[in-house]
């Protein structure tokens, strides 16, 4: 079984973890086109490459990010999400623009 190294708990069997999907940027839900939103919700690159993904270490409830190759399954690195998400995210109201 694959070993995944949790930044908090160290190397563990991958069965201790829950896959949380790609790390992807949400378009501004209030201003983007329907197509751009559908793209965000349903479509995936799904290519053979190194991807950034969310992983949860279930026993400790800790989310982190892993960079993994989608064909070799090699895990390049793992780190705390704060390395990418380091500022508070805000949503603005744009009532007028919404039909």
């Amino acid at each position, binding site marked *: 079984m694959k070993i995944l190294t949790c930044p908090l708990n160290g190397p563990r069997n991958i069965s201790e973890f829950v896959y949380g999907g790609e790390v992807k940027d949400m378009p501004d839900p209030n201003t983007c086109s329907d197509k751009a939103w559908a793209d965000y919700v349903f479509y995936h690159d799904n290519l053979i490459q190194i991807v950034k993904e969310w992983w949860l270490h279930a026993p400790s409830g800790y989310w982190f990010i892993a960079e993994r190759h989608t064909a070799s399954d090699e895990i390049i690195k793992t780190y705390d999400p704060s390395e990418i*998400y380091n500022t508070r995210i805000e949503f603005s109201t744009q009532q007028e623009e919404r039909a």
Partner: protein
Amino acid sequence: MKPSQRLNEPMGLLIDRNKPVQFKFENQLVSGYAGDSIASALIANQSWLMSRSFKYHRPRGPLTMAGQDANTLIQLGGEPNVLADRQNISQDIQVRGQNYNGSLENDKDAVLGYFGRFMPVGFYYRSFFKPLGAWKKWEGVIRDKAGLGVLDLNFKPEYYDKKYLFADLVVVGSGPAGLAAALKAADAGATVILVEEQTILGGSLTYNRFDIEGKKAQTLRHELLTRVTEHPNIQVMTDAVCNAWFTDNYLPVIQGKRMYKIRAKECILASGAYEQHVVFRNNDLPGVIMCSAATRLIKHYAVKPGNKAVVLTGNDEGYYTALDLLEQGIEVAAIVDMRAQAQDPILFASVAEKGISIKQGATVYEALATKGNKHIKGVDIRQITGKGQVADTAELIDCDLLCMSAGFMPAYQILCQAGAKLSYDDAAAEFNLSGLPAHLYIAGSVNGIYSLDAVLKDGEKAASEALNSLGLSTEPVADVNCDKKVNYDWPIFSHPKGKDFVDYDEDLQAKDIVNATRLGYRDIQLVKRFSTVGMGPSQGRHSALPTARLVANATDRSVTETGVTTARPPFAPEKLAHLAGRIFDPYQRTPMHYRHLELGAKMIPAGHWQRPAYYGGAGERDKCIQLEADHVRNKVGLIDVSTLGGIELRGPDAAEFMNRIYTFGFLKQPVGKTRYAVLTNEHGVVIDDGVACRIADDHFYVTATTSGVTRVYREMTKWNAMWRLDVDILNVTSAFSAVNLAGPDSRKVLEKLAPEFDASADAFPYLAYRETNIQGIPARLLRVGFVGELGYEIHVPAQYGEALWDLIMQAGKAFQIKPFGVETQRLLRLEKGHIIVSQDTDGMSHPGELSLGWAVNRKKPFFVGCRSVDIMMAKPMKRKLVGFRLPADSAKPEEGHLVIEQGEVTGNITSCEYSPAVKAIIGMAFAGIEQSEPGSKIGIRVDGKMLQAEVVSLPFYDPKNSRQEL
């Protein structure tokens, strides 16, 4: 059965002559010794026939004596497909042959062998289906012939378990290569696990002859074993099969009734090589065996494999075998060497000296059989005239044993599972392995190294590589070379009459392989799938090499280009019992669980929990539910809702966070109030709901559905890993135990329970949240109305759950309190028109379809799924969840029945019950949008008949909600 004949000591490494054991084979008593395999005991009694082959029901006996072939699959009591050459005997076991019709000796289906030519490769694709419908008849006939052993359907599983092990290094295989590797690594300080499939250590050292005198193996083995068994760093596992390689050196090892899962930093595969058979007519007769099988019989079991032997070889090993046979008093009628000359002239000379007739450049063209193909009785020997070609003149020799060795195939399976590549070396006529992943090494004959000194060096070399990787050494690693050639390049002699088996498991002959390519199945993978070569229980250990050669030859490709088919786990067949082990199926219990049982509840699963459906016998469902419902409507009832999910949100951003997660607005939710909370996913589909309590400005307690809470909690924490709001999110599901105390008398019960608490309507109004202390138990109280009566959800720390239940039941006695179950609750909430997410919703339901628009706040900037909800709600709606009713005496629709409009399916029933309060059948259903207004009719098909139900507005019961707000 004939009397047992055994050789003298020191032959018989594995048996204990002081411990006789008796068992039954085909109802006949057989005697052997402790340590005997079933096969060795049978052969000691000169009983070679053990089973019948898959297709032609040919008599079969051992081939390898090492569990590498499928010729000895027998039935052990109720257990099918047991390897007779791997399974040790024990007192009184009952053994039978397999796959025969009548008796093992006289198998009526053996006649199939004579019809072989009517059954060319893939014949079943070409027949049995004309005219249309014919196949239905033939299918049954063919199926009846399928399979090998017979399963005992009443067998009760035994105690099997699993264990994890950890080591710096695992060495698989304890031949000279493995022993040398383990010792070197252990000496350097690595912790080593040495895994050996056989019951003793030593591998080929236990049966193979490495020198003319026949002393070397024993001396070396003794020396290595002494060091290994005394070494504190080496843990030895024998009778233990490493059954696969999984990513990151995760190795399942099966030993006894346990599967070990070893995680090793480094791994050395020293798994040896399989001796290969020669393809000629009747090469499957009992008495035709591998050279190593003969020496195993002699040295492991002290069993004399025959009286007059012929050795057919393509390498020098056959000469050593001849010496072993001679030494034990077995006449060697001839050595038939396919090569023009032996590699080692000294060996040749010393064998010739003993007077053995050596026929060079010759082969066995056909083995001659006793009646019924039960045993070999002689061989037809011919000069080889070209690749696979022989002369017309034959020499016939009588014999009762033929030992063969066409060469060796590395035990490549586990390495290929790890991603290694096989390539064929034309000069050596053998496959090599390359391209191993990091931390996996290879040593010995699996690495194409065959001379003993080089094998030992190769083991040490692999150990150095592992030690370097462990940081325990920095020694430079030098290549090991070996020029010993062991493979003859074309040991395949097709015979016009066939029965020249390439694959014993599947009864495939040389022409079957060639014909598959001629039909157009040229790729080795297509050959496999069309002919089934390599698909039997031994998974091509012996057929892979000749098949690759035959296919390459037939399609004008190199053997490397042709390759072999993919090796997949497991290495050796593994029992499901081993894989299942102790079946860990965690379950959850609410603190009140045993109270429900005591009260006679009918329990139903809810995720990993059990919940009372209702209290009463399984046959009394409707009656129990209606009585319980009636009781809640008129008096007071109590239901355990501990399985409800609970999540706490604390911190300055708690309200902001709630506002982003749920559809409703939460910024302005007053402290001390509860609010319905709906959750959509990013697709805009409703996936969960609950009640949010605002305990303080910066503190929310929100419930979630039993099955949804884990997911909701995970989503929440993931979102906040992005949003970085100042909020602490905690799943408190198991921390709280909860009940819903409901019914007109519930306030009285509460007052009795907590006299100091002001439960009056003014002090504790509908939808309020309060905290109090119930006789020493800290409690959270939610005034909610899921079932539509005055009622209180009471949440307490789980350790007080049972006490709370007891206290309420006691306090409620005066008011005739009764427990009620989930099914009753479902009826009660249906009467109130409340949905249950996942029962009244499906994977497509957006809030609009569920009439939950009121619970969606579109003034706020964001909630998860908001944009998707907008997109969907902006489109014309096609269906809607509606309430419907039918007269009490109507047929009752069941959940899942269809709503049909003019022959088109427009929806389905999601909930439906007879309501004693409404005195009608009521329900909810998805209906086409045209039929969704109250007053419309919807057609429901029940048991093939259409009913017309009336769409009504919700709720069904107490439309003004006055009862819950009392």
